[in-house]
């Protein structure tokens, strides 16, 4: 075992883990800046401008504020579960990036069931919210947590079923193979992306992704007008920061899985010298993720919130039958051709 721990493969693995983890941590901070700026511009106001150029150091200022705030643990809270809940929320969100291929050779591990691994982690993320709300031992968190958990497990179904069409076409569950299968083009210039072959699945996945990460228009669980702050009402400073980081990391994870499945991952026009060709896939991947993130932030700024019964009706009666119909039609087409 010692010779494995000091071999070249292990060192490269550790470097990949450090690079990807560091990148995701930084992007989570940057994402809060992007969200505030875009929301502000949509609402015709400047947004953060004072801290650093264009307000770019605002996330750093927020982080310092969170570090220096007082950690309050309410007396009536169940201390062990109260402290564990942000961790339970944070760990699956970051663990998703262990199987996401950022480039042809920048992937921590390529599981043969990588796509199912991502969905398994999504299922485990429900516990952070349920335990966080219950352990706070107060009525608004409990209500918010129950609503949010019910919403998350309902939309998990349409999330998982909508990608089965893509899996049927590509005939594999590994994320790297899914990206490689979208490498060619039709007629020389239309890329063989799955969004052209599976438009319904794409729409269902994007909508379910918004619902899974508890963002507007599906954020009834943390709506300010009704529930103070939902399941993270009683949380302060670092634990609240961990919940927020988990939410942003979940958003980036859903966006990356959406680009891998439907937009061709790191495929894109390759040009230039050798060193540029090594960096270009990562650039394309990041650009596509940025597109999705921008779309989600725009969605937050413009669309009003769903009511709870509308939300559940939409998930069970609209999205779930749509994804099932998509599976049936796709399997017919795949069986015939």
């Amino acid at each position: 075992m010692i010779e494995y721990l000091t071999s070249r493969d292990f060192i490269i693995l550790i470097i990949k883990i450090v690079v990807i983890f560091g990148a995701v941590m930084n992007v989570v901070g940057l994402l809060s800046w992007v969200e505030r700026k875009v929301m502000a511009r949509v609402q015709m106001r400047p947004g953060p401008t004072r801290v650093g150029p264009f307000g770019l150091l605002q996330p750093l200022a927020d982080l310092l504020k969170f570090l220096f705030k007082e950690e309050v643990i309410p007396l009536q809270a169940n201390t062990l579960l109260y402290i564990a809940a942000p961790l339970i929320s944070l760990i699956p969100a970051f663990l998703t990036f262990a199987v996401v291929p950022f480039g042809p050779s920048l992937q921590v591990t390529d599981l043969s069931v990588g796509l199912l691994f991502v969905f398994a982690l999504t299922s485990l993320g429900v516990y952070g919210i349920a335990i966080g709300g219950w352990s706070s031992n107060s009525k608004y968190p409990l209500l918010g947590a129950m609503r949010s958990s019910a919403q998350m497990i309902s939309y998990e179904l349409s999330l998982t079923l909508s990608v089965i069409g893509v899996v049927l076409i590509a005939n594999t569950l590994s994320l790297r193979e899914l990206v490689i299968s979208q490498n060619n083009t039709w007629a020389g210039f239309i890329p063989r992306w799955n969004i052209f072959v599976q438009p319904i699945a794409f729409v269902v996945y994007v909508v379910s992704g918004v619902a899974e990460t508890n963002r507007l228009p599906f954020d009834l669980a943390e709506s300010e007008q009704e529930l103070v702050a939902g399941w993270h009402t009683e949380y302060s400073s670092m634990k609240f920061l961990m919940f927020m980081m988990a939410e942003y990391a979940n958003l980036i994870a859903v966006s990356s899985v959406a680009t891998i499945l439907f937009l061709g991952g790191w495929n894109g026009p390759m040009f230039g010298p050798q060193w540029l060709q090594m960096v270009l896939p990562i650039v394309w991947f990041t650009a596509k993720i940025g597109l999705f993130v921008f779309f989600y932030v725009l969605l937050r700024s413009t669309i009003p919130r769903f009511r709870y019964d509308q939300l559940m009706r939409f998930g069970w009666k609209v999205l779930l039958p749509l994804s099932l119909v998509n599976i049936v039609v796709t399997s017919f087409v795949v069986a015939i051709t």
Partner: protein
Amino acid sequence: MSGVQLLFFFFAAIAVGAAINVLVQKHVLYSALSLIVMLSAVSVLFIFLRADFIAVIQVIVYAGAIMVLFTFVIMLLNLPANEDGVDRLRWLKFIGIPLGLFLLFLIVATLWNVEPLGATRAEMVGSPKAIGTSLFNDYLLPFEATSLLILIALVGAVVFAKKDL
């Protein structure tokens, strides 16, 4: 002791420790959360046995759906930790644990000498393709029967949980 064996002992210890924690805890929510830890540890052991599809399905279905159901019910029923009422069966615990250990001794003595099946251990991987091929060709009838079973369970759960039958 090679690295794989060390990892096996680590996850086996987590599984057994979490299972014992399910019994020991007074509040049933802590028992449910320990069970989730045990299910994840057993899922890792499935990966050691190269059954990766079953491992991920165990996390999605067992730890991610069934245990969410348990957690919801426990949170909704919201009982205090200590159940009142005299514990009439204290003597059962005192003779139950030695009897259980005797049962364990019998089982372990039987299983200690299981011969590994020679050197021709087939290189089988529990890939989704292998499971799908077998499930939809050889075991199609049980597969369709389970869909009927789930429908029955769904109807049964809705009927039992109604306020006015």
